Structure formats: C-alpha cells, structure tokens
C-alpha cells in the first residue's frame, strides 16, 4: 500500500475485472436459487428471507467503513495517495450498502416487530453510520483541491471509526428491539447450516459486486485526474 501507486492498482483491478464479474454473476445466481429453494423459518415464515440481503449488506457497510478508516489512517500517516483514493472510491459504496440495510431492515421490522422504525440503539447507530458516510462524501466534494478534501474527509473517517463497535455491540450493551447477533456471537452461530451457507454465498456475491463497483469508481477517479493533470501541463 505504500509502494503501490494509484495507477498500478487501477491497472491491476482492471485486469482482474472480468473474472470478478464472472464469479459475481455465478454467485448471485447461485444464491438466488438457494434463497428460493430454502425452507421458511419456523417462526417468522417467509419474511425471514429478507435476512439474505439485510445481513450481507450490514456486514459490508461495517467492513467498508473499517476499510475506509484504516486506509485514511495510512493515508494521513504515510501521505499515501493510493490510500486516500481507496477511501474516496469506497465511501459511496458504503452509503449505498447502509441505505439498503436501513430500507430492508425497516420492511423486515414492519413484518415482524410491527413497526417500520424505532429509536433503539442499533437502529440509531446504523442511521448515524449512514450519515457519516454521507458527510464523508460531501466533504470530499466541497474543496477546490482534492488533497485538502482528502485530509478533511480522512479525519472524519477516523473519528467515525468510534461508531463501528457501537453499531456492532449495541445489541449486547443495551436492551434493544433489534435481536442479538446471529453469526458472530459467543457460543457459535445460532442458525442452521443450510441458512448459514446461503448467507455466506450471498455475502460473497454482494462483496464481489462491491469490488466490481470499487474498481470502476477507482478507474473513473484516476482517469479524471490524469486528464486534469495533462490539461494543466499543456497550459
């Protein structure tokens, strides 16, 4: 990450892009078949099938934020342009994932809890996470020079890292309407293996979709900068 320039990363991502797309389509189809074939939950019935978008999207929104925070730290400490560009390219994807989490979660909540939205700790901290994503994107595009924007947005991303353990452990620390963790919990997953396999397959499909988006956004940012630089040099 210190020796890699944005250009080499962009070329590398472009070279593996078609394999990622192929694998992603395979996994998406596979997970769709698995989700359709799965038996309903004994208690929640068919509405539990929202889990297979809600949970992968939630994991990804946390994973993307931690990636963003860590690459912001590396970018600020080592002045690495690649790290800054990674967090710039990744944050819209995180915003989309957190919006998917909130919308599918409130549809699920309407079906099971009987309400679209409550202000409990998990839901509120997730909403704050999506606002931090939004603020990060707004900060990135509110400066004339992208280096200044990267600096400001990175500080926000690092401060926002505090929110991650709150989102993850809010269901353990406080009483919430939201149920506890199913997979990453003390004492092993409380979910049968066929559900767990489907969940992991759909997570990897969504993960590859994010990688695909990321490589394209990264390419767009790099190419735009190249054109700008070349224009400046020609003047």
């Amino acid at each position, binding site marked *: 990450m210190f020796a890699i320039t944005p250009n080499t990363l962009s070329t590398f991502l472009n070279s593996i892009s078609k394999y990622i797309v192929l694998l992603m389509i395979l996994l998406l189809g596979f997970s769709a078949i698995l989700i359709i074939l799965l038996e309903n*939950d004994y208690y929640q019935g068919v509405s539990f099938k929202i889990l297979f978008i809600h949970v992968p999207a939630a994991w990804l929104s946390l994973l993307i934020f931690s990636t963003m925070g860590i690459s912001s730290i590396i970018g600020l400490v080592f002045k690495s342009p690649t790290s800054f560009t990674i967090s710039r390219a990744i944050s819209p994807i995180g915003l989309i994932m957190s919006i998917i989490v909130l919308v599918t979660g409130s549809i699920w909540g309407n079906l099971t809890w009987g*309400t679209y939205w409550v202000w409990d700790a998990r839901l509120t901290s997730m909403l704050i996470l999506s606002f931090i994503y939004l603020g990060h994107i707004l900060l990135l595009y509110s400066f004339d020079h992208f280096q200044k924007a990267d600096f400001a947005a990175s500080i926000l991303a690092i401060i926002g890292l505090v929110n991650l353990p709150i989102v993850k452990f809010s269901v353990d620390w406080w009483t919430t309407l939201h149920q*506890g963790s199913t997979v990453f919990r003390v004492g092993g997953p409380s979910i049968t293996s066929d559900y767990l396999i489907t969940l992991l397959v759909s997570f990897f499909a969504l993960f590859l979709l994010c990688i695909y988006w990321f490589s394209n956004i990264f390419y767009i940012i790099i190419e735009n900068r190249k054109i700008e630089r070349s224009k400046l040099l020609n003047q």
Partner: protein
Amino acid sequence: MRIIKLNNQIKKRFIFLIIIFVCFSSSIVLISYSLKDQIAYFVSPSELYQMKDLDDRYLRVGGLVKEGSLKFENNIWKFEIIDEENKSIKVEFSKTLPNLVEENKGIIVEGRILKENLFIAEIVLAKHDENYMPQSAIDKMQEDGIWRGN
C-alpha cells in the same frame, strides 16, 4: 521486503491521529455510559418494580409472553410479561397485536402503569430472537430428543 523507515514526521502524524481518536472515543464512551438508562430501549418487569415515581410515566417494558396467559376478552388483549427472574406484570391492550406475538416469545409494550401490577399498553411490538431454523430441523431435533425450546 521493503522496510518502512519511521521518520519523525510519520511518528508525529501517527501520534496526532491517535490523540484525536482517543479524545473522541473517550467522549463517546463517557456520554453513552452516563446515558445508559436512556439508551436502553425497555426495562424488564423486575427492573420496573425497583423503579420509583412510576405514576403516569410513559415507558416500555419487555420480556416473554407468559405461557397460557394470552387471552382475548371484551375486545381487549390480556397477557402477562415475564422475565428471567420470574417477575411478571399483567398487560392490557385494545388494538390489534403484531402477527408474531405468541406465548413464550419476546414482546415489548409501550404505555403506562395504571395501578399495582397492571400495565395499559398503547403500542405493542413483537421482539423476535436471533435463532433461525426451518420447521424440519425442529422436527428432527424433537425426534432425537435434543430440542430444548418451546
């Protein structure tokens, strides 16, 4: 492998970031610790009985619906909420219940205490747990005699 030289500039920036992070995280920890009771979404019946000045206070109580207590009489739902310490409270609710409210399953009620041990709910929410399994898995566990649930 390329060894990164930690020169003074890098060290300084790293320490600067750590100070920012520690300041913010400790402030968040302090805020959430002092607001612990406000952040909690509901109280259990045993916590409810320890609270003072309950007159007309709007609050949420959560627990399991006691087995054999869910009844529908005179257009009013009546049930009892029980917690792990076997303390329970009677609840009355006059609107439609969410689909997933069942005996021995989680529930949260929002409303006021009318008198000793009677809670008038204005909103009822079903709280499901984090266990997911198909009916066939339950049947199989019951056959094998390892089913511990309800």
